[in-house]
């Protein structure tokens, strides 16, 4: 990750001082911001992940689940991130359609593969946790099925982002379909309350106090923080990659125009 820091040759213009947060709509200024804050995000992610894993492996075995409670520290943060990333993509979609923010589409595109990865991890670790606890790898209950649908939506959005060449058309199409797909997020969240599912109801995000002992709750929260920081770190890096992709496209188009003119 250390190799991410320096890019002096092509980022020399990033030292422009912005007047307000809104000025980060300028991709060049945003790249400057990424270069400044990325090392701190990388450090915080590594430290929180190390502390979270240490707390997880120091936690006692659950009286019912035994050592499989260790899978919870991976499964639950991945599932939370799967929904959080889609929510961020939906806000980005509004940014494209309503505020026409230049970085909104960049944010949406950079978040999609990360959301797909976290959803994949939630499904796989859930399956590996379900087999010893429920006696089955998979059931078609409302929670599991709606999360699988979320994964398919992520894959569809990634495919769509690569299928349309014209940037403004692609941005609008991605934003509209992302917002349509947001209907799945409350379905995932409340599926365990609305339908009779094998998956348990919420244990942490409840209106009353969490139904979990602090011996498990604290490591879980630290792991959730680590996953969240990991997402924001990778999201910043992904947005930087997307901005560079657009610059390359623009430079190649200029070359093609010049070749046509001569």
């Amino acid at each position, binding site marked *: 990750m250390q190799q991410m820091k320096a890019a002096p040759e092509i980022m020399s*213009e990033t030292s422009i001082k912005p007047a307000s947060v809104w000025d980060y709509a300028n991709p060049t200024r945003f790249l400057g911001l990424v270069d400044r804050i990325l090392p701190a995000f990388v450090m915080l992610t590594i430290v929180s992940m190390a502390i979270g894993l240490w707390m997880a492996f120091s936690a006692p075995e659950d009286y019912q689940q*035994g050592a499989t409670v260790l899978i919870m520290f991976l499964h639950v943060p991945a599932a939370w991130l799967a929904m959080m990333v889609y929510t961020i993509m939906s806000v980005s979609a509004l940014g494209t359609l309503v505020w026409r923010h230049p970085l909104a589409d960049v944010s949406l595109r950079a978040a999609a593969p990360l959301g797909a990865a976290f959803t994949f991890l939630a499904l796989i670790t859930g399956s*590996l*946790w379900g087999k*010893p606890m429920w006696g089955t790898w998979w059931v078609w209950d409302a929670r599991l099925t709606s999360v699988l649908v979320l994964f398919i939506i992520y894959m569809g959005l990634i495919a769509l982002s690569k299928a349309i060449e014209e940037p403004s058309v692609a941005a609008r199409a991605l934003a509209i379909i992302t917002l349509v797909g947001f209907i799945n997020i409350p379905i995932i969240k409340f599926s365990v309350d609305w339908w009779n599912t094998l998956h348990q109801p919420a244990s942490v995000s409840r209106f009353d106090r969490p139904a979990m002992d602090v011996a498990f709750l604290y490591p879980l929260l630290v792991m959730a923080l680590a996953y969240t920081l990991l997402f924001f770190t990778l999201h910043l*890096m*992904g947005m930087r990659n997307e901005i560079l992709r657009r610059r390359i496209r623009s*430079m190649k188009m200029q*070359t093609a125009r010049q070749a046509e003119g001569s």
Partner: protein
Amino acid sequence: MFGQYSGFIIPSYLISAAVIAGLVVWTVLVYRNRRAEILELEKRGVKRRYQKEAE
């Protein structure tokens, strides 16, 4: 180490580590490739709009 559940716990951690490592490596490689491509284009004399305006 985890008794009868090791066959579920160890794969969970290995798969999670592999996916996260894959994301990090892929992101870093894409960045390095794109930066190299921009430098190559600049070396060939292709300039971005702001560079032209500055001239």
